[in-house]
């Protein structure tokens, strides 16, 4: 297996606070990797550094062999990354379908001049409908987003990320805020997407779901790499237990 995403010596500082300290992170093609760790460990910051939302002090980032360390966020996304947000961020002026169709039209808004002479939204809407079906919310397609429950919006985040046709799906706490039944169902959906061949990186606190669906774990604690490897053996490591249980 080859690493599709390689992040080396990632250091991020917020003022005097070191959020990430020389983190090494790699993702194999096709795997389901969960990024775990206690609150404040730097998990979201790591994803933000990878997508370029946060500017690291130092980082060497390679996506599919290409160096993306100095690219702006939108170019990294176009090269094959997609991100969902921990706190859902739908476009509130659009319906569910329009949210996803906009993401699916990423090629049509690539060049600004051609976007002014491009009108047809049908192919993207068709594609969007398929993504809504994959995540199981196609019945809400024409609804305004502000009326919808969190469970639907969490799935909308995933559908919209899929619509940019990424090589890697980065999910930031997709199960947070859902009840155990909803969480289990969404975890199954994400596992299903992974089985279709998508490489998935997931930040998640829900350990029972993490252990159920992940191929590999990467543990961060206090901005440092703590452990990584096969889920069950990682959870048995004393330093991981200490980080989670204190001691």
């Amino acid at each position: 297996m080859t690493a599709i995403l390689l992040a080396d010596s990632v250091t991020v500082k917020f003022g005097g606070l070191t959020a990430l300290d020389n983190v090494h992170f790699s993702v194999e093609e096709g795997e389901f990797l969960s990024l775990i760790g206690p609150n404040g460990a730097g998990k979201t910051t790591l994803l933000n550094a990878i997508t370029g939302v946060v500017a690291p002090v130092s980082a060497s980032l390679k996506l599919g062999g290409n160096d993306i360390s100095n690219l702006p966020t939108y170019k990294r996304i176009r090269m094959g990354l997609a991100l969902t947000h921990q706190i859902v961020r739908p476009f509130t002026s659009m319906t569910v379908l329009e949210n996803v169709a906009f993401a699916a039209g990423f090629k049509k808004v690539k060049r600004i001049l051609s976007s002014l002479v491009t009108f047809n939204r049908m192919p993207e809407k068709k594609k969007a409908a398929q993504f809504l079906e994959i995540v199981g919310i196609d019945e809400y397609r024409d609804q305004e987003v502000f009326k919808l429950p969190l469970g639907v919006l969490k799935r909308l985040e995933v559908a919209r990320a899929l619509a940019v046709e990424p090589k890697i799906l980065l999910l930031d706490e997709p199960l947070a805020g859902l009840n155990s039944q909803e969480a289990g169902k969404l975890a199954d959906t994400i596992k299903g997407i992974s089985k279709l061949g998508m490489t998935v990186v997931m930040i998640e606190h829900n350990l029972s779901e993490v252990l159920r669906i992940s191929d590999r774990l990467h543990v961060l604690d206090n901005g440092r790499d703590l452990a990584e490897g096969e889920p069950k053996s990682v959870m048995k490591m004393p330093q991981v237990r200490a980080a989670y249980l204190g001691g």
Partner: protein
Amino acid sequence: MGLYEISLATVVGINIILAVSLNLITGYCGQISLGHAAFYGIGAYTAALLAKIGWPIYLTLGAGFFLAGIAGAVIGLTSLRVREDFLAIVTMGVAFLFVGIVRQQEFLGGEMGISGIPSPGMTKPAYLCLVLIIALLAILFSWYVKRSWMGYAFDAVADDEQTAKTLGLDIKSYKITAFAMGTAMAGLAGGLYAYYTRFIIPDAFGFIQSITILSMVAVGGIGSIFGVVLATIFLSLMPEIFRFINDYKLLLYGILLFSVMRFAPDGLAGFYKLLYKKRNLR
């Protein structure tokens, strides 16, 4: 129509172009601007100066259009660094900067402005037609933008820039484009205004004018072409029809702007939608 009505209709036409142009920036792309009149002024001064040295009207109007658009793109660059309330302050600065600079320049007429601007070379009714045709084109253009993928991208930027970025959108280019298009259109309106009054002073393009344009957009319903045009006609004619209002124009615009923001953020277009939806529910 008498001369008075023709003159009034010309002002309404120019205001429509202005309001529609600000709507592209603030309504579509979500970038607030409190300095839109500065670009209106750049167009007016450019057209006035060039007309005085003998350029034909289509060239002077075109020059005002391009110069204002270029200035707008430069201001658009600043919008990349600041957002929302900070952008409002930066653009407010632009409004004061424009008037401040123009007042000090002798070749721009200083406080006295520019008088003796040549006539557009057509009768007043014909000029009114020209203004209305351009206003109609401005409306059609913004309707066209709304339907295109560019309009879709503007929606996304206005809703949530950060998310638009994480979906692979180059939001910088879209913001600069919105500024360039909107300000160029304001420059064109400025040129038309210069030929209409044939006498311009810096204060006509000050902060108060910027707020007036913003009121038209906000009262109409930010982003809605139909509402904005309706509000522009209403707000331009009201002080004329009810003369006594004229003295309290600013107070009235202030109250309107405040009430709309406080009670009906979607403006006239929002009311229409509300009515329409209620009827659907029945």
